[in-house]
C-alpha cells in the first residue's frame, strides 16, 4: 500500500524533512505499511514462487561493462568502458562510494543524489538527499532502485527512480535495507540480514518474500541471473522457494586461510567511504557461473592483498597463481575468464582467470582514490602464464615490503606445499637473504627442514659462509638444510656441512644440525673438521646445542675416523676436563658402537668410502 508521507511512527521530523526534499520534485507514491514487517510467517516460498512465475522468463538486462574511479580530491568521477569507448569524467563532490548498477552510476555528495549514464558519464538526474547516505543500488535498464540510510542513521529509505528522473516509489522503514536489485520493475531488497523482499514498484506492495539461512544483505544481477547473498551466493531460480529449508541453489567459496581475512562482499547496508580503505585492498572476487549446478565461473576465485593478487581453484581452494601488481589494487570485478582490477594509479589490468597472465591493460589516466568495476558481458582473450607458481611466489617474496609481510608469509606456506625444486630454491634464497624480513626468514628456515627435493640448491647455498669482507652478512640456513639433506641422504653435502661445523658465525642450532647430519652423510673426508671441532669444544661446550654437536662430532670420529678417531674419543672420555654432559652421551654412543661391532670396537679401516649405515636411535636412558 502506498501513501504520500504516511510515515510510520519511527520516522522522525528530521527524516520527514529529508524525505520532503525527494517528494518536492517527484510525483511517485510512498509505501510503509506491511512492507518489511516482522510479523510475517514463512510461507514456504509460495509468495516468492509467485513472483518468479510472474516474471516468467524475464531475464535481467546485462549492465554496462565499465570501470569507474573516484579521482581528484574525491570530487571527480572518471569512467572508462571496458569494451572500448571514450573515457569520461564528471566533477561532483562525493560523500560516499559511487555505485555502478546496470547501466547507471549512482553517486551522492554536495547534498544531492545523482545518476550518470555508466558508459558515457552523462548526467541522468539529480535529487536532493537531505544528508542521507547511499548504501546500495540496482538497475534494470529503466528504473534504478537505491537504498539509503534513514535519518540519524536509523532505518532505511528506498527510492525507485526512472532514468529520466521520475520517482516511481519511495519507501521508508525502520529496518536496515541491504543493496537491492531490480528485474522488470520488481525490486528485490535484502533486509535484516536474512530476508529478501520482492517489491512491486508499480504499487509498492511486497509481492513476495523468502528467508535465507545464511547472512544475506545484497541482491544483484549478473550474466542474466539474479543473485542474493553476502557470505555465499544464492541464485533466484526454481529452488528459491525452498530457501527457508536451506534448499535454495547456493554456492560458497571454500573456507580456507587467506591473508588479511578478506570478504567476498561487504555488508549491503553500510555506506562505503568515497576513498578506498584496507577492506578494498584486501578482498575476494568471484563470479557465479551460469548453468547447473551453480558454481564459480572458471573454477576461480581471487584474493587481493594490497598489491598481491592470487587466483585460487574455486572447488578445492588451492592456490593456482600469483600476480604481484605494481601498485595497490583498490577495486575490481570477476569477469568471464578474467579478473579486472584497478590500482591506485588508475591503471586497469585484466588478468586471465586460469593463468593470472596479463591479457589487457587500460588506463583511467590519473591516480584514483577508489574504483568500481562492473564486468558483466566482458570476456577478454586469455593472457599468457608468466612462470611457474613457485616463480610467481618467489617474485612476491622478493618484494620485501613490510606491508606485504602477512601476504608473503601466507605465500611462503603455500610454497612449502609445492613439490617443486624451484620452491626449494626460493626458500633457500629467502632464508639467506639479508634483505628479507625476519619473520619470513624464520618461516623459510622452518619450511626448508621438511623439503625433500632441491638438494643441489642446498649444497650450493652451503658453500657460502659469513664474510664481512665480501658483504655476505647472513649465514645460510645451515640447520634446516642439514636436516633436509640428511633425510635425502645427500652425501655430496658432507664437505660443505663439515666446513660449517667450524664456522663461528653459524648459530649453535645450525652447528648442532650440521654435526648431526654429518653422522649420516659424512665419511673419512670430514674427519679433519670433526677433529678440530671436537678439540675446540670438548672442554668448553656450553648449552644443549653445542653439547649435542660435540657428541655428533664424536660419533663422526668413531664412525669414520678409524683408530685415530677412536683414540681421540677415548682420550676425551678419560680427561676430566671434557664436558661432563657430553662425556655421558659419548660413553653411551661408544657402547652402542661396540655392540654394533660385536662387543669390541672395530674401527673402520682408513680410506673406506663405503656409505655408512644409517644410525640407529640412541637408547633411552
Amino acid at each position, binding site marked *: 500500500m502506498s501513501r504520500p508521507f504516511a510515515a510510520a511512527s519511527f520516522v522522525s521530523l528530521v527524516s520527514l524533512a529529508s524525505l520532503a526534499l525527494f517528494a518536492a520534485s517527484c510525483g511517485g507514491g510512498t509505501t510503509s505499511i506491511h512492507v518489511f514487517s516482522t510479523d510475517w510467517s514463512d510461507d514456504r516460498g509460495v509468495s516468492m514462487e509467485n513472483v518468479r512465475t510472474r516474471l516468467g522468463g524475464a531475464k535481467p538486462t546485462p549492465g554496462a561493462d565499465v570501470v569507474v574511479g573516484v579521482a581528484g580530491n574525491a570530487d571527480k568521477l572518471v569512467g572508462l568502458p571496458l569494451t572500448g569507448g571514450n573515457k569520461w569524467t564528471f566533477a561532483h563532490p562525493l560523500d560516499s562510494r559511487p555505485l555502478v548498477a546496470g547501466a547507471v552510476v549512482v553517486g551522492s555528495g554536495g547534498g544531492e543524489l545523482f545518476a550518470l549514464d555508466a558508459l558515457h558519464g552523462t548526467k541522468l538526474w539529480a535529487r536532493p538527499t537531505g544528508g542521507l547516505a547511499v548504501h546500495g543500488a540496482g538497475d534494470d535498464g529503466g528504473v534504478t532502485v537505491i537504498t539509503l540510510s534513514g535519518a540519524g542513521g536509523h532505518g532505511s529509505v528506498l527510492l525507485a527512480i526512472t532514468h529520466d528522473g521520475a520517482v516511481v516509489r519511495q519507501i521508508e522503514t525502520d529496518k536496515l535495507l541491504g543493496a537491492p536489485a531490480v528485474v522488470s520493475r520488481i525490486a528485490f531488497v535484502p533486509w535484516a540480514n536474512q530476508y529478501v523482499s520482492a517489491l512491486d514498484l508499480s504499487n509498492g506492495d511486497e509481492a513476495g518474500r523468502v528467508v535465507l539461512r545464511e547472512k544475506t544483505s545484497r541482491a544483484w544481477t549478473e550474466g542474466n541471473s539474479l543473485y542474493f547473498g553476502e557470505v555465499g551466493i544464492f541464485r533466484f531460480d526454481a529452488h528459491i522457494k525452498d530457501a527457508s529449508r536451506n534448499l535454495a541453489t547456493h554456492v560458497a567459496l571454500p573456507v580456507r586461510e587467506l591473508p588479511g581475512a578478506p570478504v567476498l562482499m561487504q555488508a549491503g547496508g553500510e555506506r562505503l567511504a568515497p576513498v578506498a580503505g584496507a577492506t578494498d585492498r584486501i578482498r575476494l572476487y568471484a563470479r557465479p557461473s551460469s548453468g547447473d549446478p551453480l558454481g564459480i565461473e572458471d573454477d576461480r576465485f581471487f584474493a587481493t592483498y594490497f598489491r598481491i593478487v592470487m587466483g585460487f581453484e574455486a572447488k578445492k581452494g588451492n592456490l593456482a597463481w600469483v600476480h604481484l601488481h605494481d601498485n595497490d589494487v583498490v577495486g575490481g570485478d570477476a569477469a568471464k575468464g578474467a579478473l579486472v582490477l584497478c590500482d591506485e594509479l588508475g591503471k586497469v589490468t585484466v588478468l586471465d582467470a586460469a593463468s593470472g597472465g596479463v591479457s589487457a591493460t587500460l588506463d583511467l589516466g590519473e591516480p584514483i582514490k577508489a574504483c568500481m568495476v562492473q564486468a558483466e558481458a566482458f570476456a577478454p582473450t586469455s593472457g599468457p602464464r608468466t612462470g611457474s607458481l613457485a616463480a610467481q611466489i618467489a617474485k612476491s617474496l622478493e618484494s620485501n615490503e613490510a606491508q606485504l609481510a602477512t601476504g608473503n608469509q601466507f605465500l611462503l606456506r603455500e610454497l612449502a606445499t609445492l613439490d617443486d625444486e624451484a620452491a626449494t630454491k626460493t626458500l633457500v634464497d629467502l632464508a639467506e637473504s639479508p634483505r628479507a624480513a625476519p619473520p619470513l626468514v624464520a618461516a623459510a628456515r622452518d619450511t626448508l627442514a621438511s623439503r625433500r627435493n632441491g638438494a643441489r640448491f642446498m649444497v650450493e647455498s652451503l658453500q657460502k659462509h659469513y664474510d664481512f669482507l665480501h658483504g655476505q652478512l647472513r649465514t645460510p640456513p645451515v640447520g634446516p638444510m642439514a636436516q633436509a639433506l640428511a633425510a635425502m641422504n645427500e652425501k655430496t653435502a658432507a664437505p660443505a656441512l663439515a666446513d660449517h661445523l667450524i664456522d*663461528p658465525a653459524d648459530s649453535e642450532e645450525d652447528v648442532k644440525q650440521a654435526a648431526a647430519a654429518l653422522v649420516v652423510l659424512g665419511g673419512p673426508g670430514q674427519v679433519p673438521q670433526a677433529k678440530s671441532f671436537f678439540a675446540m669444544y670438548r672442554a668448553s661446550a656450553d648449552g644443549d646445542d653445542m653439547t649435542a654437536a660435540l657428541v655428533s662430532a664424536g660419533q663422526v670420529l668413531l664412525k669414520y675416523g678409524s683408530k685415530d678417531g677412536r683414540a681421540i674419543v677415548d682420550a676425551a672420555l678419560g680427561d*676430566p*676436563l671434557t664436558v661432563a654432559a657430553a662425556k655421558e652421551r659419548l660413553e653411551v654412543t661408544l657402547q652402542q658402537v661396540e655392540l654394533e661391532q660385536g662387543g669390541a670396537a672395530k674401527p673402520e679401516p682408513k680410506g673406506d668410502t663405503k656409505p655408512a649405515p644409517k644410525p640407529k636411535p640412541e637408547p633411552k636412558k
Partner: protein
Amino acid sequence: MRRISVVFAWAMGIALGLAAAHAGAQASQGAAEVKPKPKAAALPTGGTFTVTPALLQKLKSSDEAQIRAALDDLRLAGKSAQAAAPAIGDLLERGTTTALAEAALDTLGDMEAEVASERMAVYVHHRDVALRRAAVKALIRTKGPAAAKALRRALGDADPMVRGVAATGLGTLKVKDAVPELFMALENKIAEAAAAIGQLCTGTDCDQLAAKLGRLPFDVVTGGLDQILFRPTAEVSDDEKVKVIGKLRELGTQESNKFLKDVQTRWPKGGSARVRQSIDQAVLATAGGAQ
C-alpha cells in the same frame, strides 16, 4: 649531516682499529701482550731456558692447574722456550678449556714459534671471540704461511677487532698478495687496512691509497701514507713519495698541513733530501689551508 654520520662511523672504526693496531704494533715489536705476563717464579737462571720432560708432562696432564703452571713458565721464557711449542700445539690440538686455550695461544705468540702456527690457525674459527682475538694476535707473532692464510680469512670475521688485528697483521707479516683484500677491507671501514697497505704497496697500489684522500677520512688514509713515506727507498722510490706528498699538498687543508708538519719533524736526517724538500714546500703551500 651525512658527512657527520660518515665521520662518526669511521671514528668508531678508528677507535676499534687503534686498539687493534696498538695490539698489533706491540706484537710486531715483540712486546708483551695486553694481558700481564705471569710472575717469573719459575724462570731458570742463566738467561737460557731448558724445556724439561717434567714441564712437557705437565702440559700433557689432565690437571688444569698443572697445565696453567707450565704455560706460565713457558710464556715467561718466551722465544727461548720454543722447544716446547709442539707440545703446546698438541694441547691445542687435543683441546682444552677456553681459559687454557687462550693461555696457550698467548704463550705461543710470546714464543714466536712458527711451528705452531698451523695448529693455532684453527682457533681463528673458534666461537669464542676472545679466543679468535687471541689467535690472530698470536699468529702475527708466530708468522708463517699458515698465519698469513688465517689472517687473510680473518678479515671477513664478524668481530671488528679480529678484522682490525688481522689487517694490521697482514701488513706486519708483509703479505703482499693480500693488498687487494686490504683495499676491500678499507672500503668496508676496516681502518687498520690503510696502514697495512702503506706497509705493502708498490707503484699503483700506493697511488690508489693516496687517491683515497678526500674520499675516506683523512686520519685513516694518512695512517697508510705515513707508512709509505717512511719506507726505505728500495721499497718505495722517492718519486712515489714525492707523488704522495703532492696529493697531500693538493688537498691544501689544515689537517694536511698538520700531518705534513709532523712528517717534517720526523723526517730522518739522513733521509732523501729531495723528499725532504718536497715536504718543506708542501708544508709552506698548505699553511693557512682550508679547514
